[in-house]
């Protein structure tokens, strides 16, 4: 089977499992909504301080639930040892990574866009074309997040403290994508004029390429033992 077809077989398998279980998906969305609501109570609604903190709050609500998604992704593979089933197969390990990464990326984007929708409602921002720019930042940051998360998720999948280890390892590594994403969001939501958004997008794309290439190459070593 050619690598592209095999990648889609792997993606299809993960999406089917996620659709049928739904449990982790709902938990992830609910956790994100909870973060938005709690922060909304913590600040005075409608105050300038809340609006200024809003971009940060949005990214907290996007990143922490994302960890649940990544943990779930490899939890499924460890329940019955299916990760070993994948590793034992003659399929190229880079392709195994791509399949897992694409499924994680897709599922993360869906959750993140729902969170963005809830954010606009809870924090009383208007629905405008500018939200499409935030959606772009979300899609790009979710790519890097999923690439590093898939690699690290495989790495910590066999250890007992994986739920804790994954964020501890992941967040420092993805700082280069969190910072431009938050800065870009701040500019879109708060600035009178958009000037440096292009720079944030460039940074995100550059780090996405690096993380994706690293994941593709290193996955073989990560699962080798």
């Amino acid at each position: 089977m050619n690598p592209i077809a095999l990648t889609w077989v792997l993606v299809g398998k993960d999406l089917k499992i996620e659709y049928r279980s739904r449990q982790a998906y709902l938990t992830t969305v609910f956790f994100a909504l909870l973060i938005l609501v709690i922060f909304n109570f913590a600040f005075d609604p409608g105050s300038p301080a809340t609006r200024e903190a809003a971009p940060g709050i949005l990214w907290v609500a996007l990143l922490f639930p994302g960890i649940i998604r990544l943990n779930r992704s490899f939890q499924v593979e460890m329940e019955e040892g299916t990760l070993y089933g994948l590793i034992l197969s003659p399929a190229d390990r880079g392709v195994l990574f791509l399949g897992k990464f694409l499924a994680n990326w897709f599922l993360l984007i869906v959750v993140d866009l729902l969170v963005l929708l809830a954010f606009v409602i809870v924090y009383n921002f208007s629905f405008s074309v500018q939200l499409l720019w935030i959606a772009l930042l979300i899609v790009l940051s979710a790519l890097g997040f999923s690439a590093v998360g898939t690699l690290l998720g495989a790495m910590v999948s066999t250890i007992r403290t994986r739920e804790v280890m994954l964020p501890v390892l992941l967040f420092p590594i993805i700082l280069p994508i969190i910072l431009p994403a938050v800065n870009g969001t701040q500019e879109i939501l708060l600035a009178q004029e958009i000037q440096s958004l292009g720079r944030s997008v460039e940074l995100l794309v550059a780090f996405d390429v690096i993380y994706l290439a690293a994941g593709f190459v290193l996955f073989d070593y990560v699962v080798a033992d």
Partner: protein
Amino acid sequence: MPDPSVPLLRLSKVTKRFGVIRAVWNVDLEVSQGDSLAIFGPNGAGKTTLLRIIASLTQPTSGEIEFAFKGDNQSRNRVGYVSHLSLLYNELTGFENLLFYARLYDIQEAHDRAAEMLAKMGLEGARNQRTGEYSRGMKQRLTLARALLHEPQLLLLDEPYTGLDQHGSRLFTEVLRGLKQEGRTILLVTHNLGEGLELCDRVMIQNRGELVFQARGEHLDKSGFEKLYFQAVEEGGER
């Protein structure tokens, strides 16, 4: 096809350490085409680690492993692995699981092959049932079907009887006996002496990582093997 004069699998001085723990120690082993070999040993003897090394799920600390079939992908294509974990997705049906693995192994006519293996294991009736709803015995038969999808030359079985009731064990043994008659090479790791002796022509005992005893079926007094086993394990324990 491998050269019959060359062993299908050869391990030379294979050792695996986890920190200070010696899981597998200095193991020399040859397995020929058509062999059925049982490795017995108590818990923690290193049997599973040895099998994982052969399956290339873990790398040995030292020593060499040679397959008659060359190349990493070749060996992965020629080895089937069954463990006490099913390696099946609970949310997928029996058929979907087999179809997924058939595609992973690039098997032509994947649909037909998956259906054929379900029928062979007597699971046609449960084709569209999620494997999470299977009984332990059904799941283990499906596991075997998964391991045999790509017609491996070497079948590795790690404690395959774990959790099976008597009926399930008997069914499973019948399937394995059929495979043995087909001439498949079987390497079974278990602490269930009865099942292992019934099925295999060669037996070995592993204790504290080392292979401390080996014999061929024709030279083996099966009725006295239990005594011999405990003797070998206790002697190993005193080292």
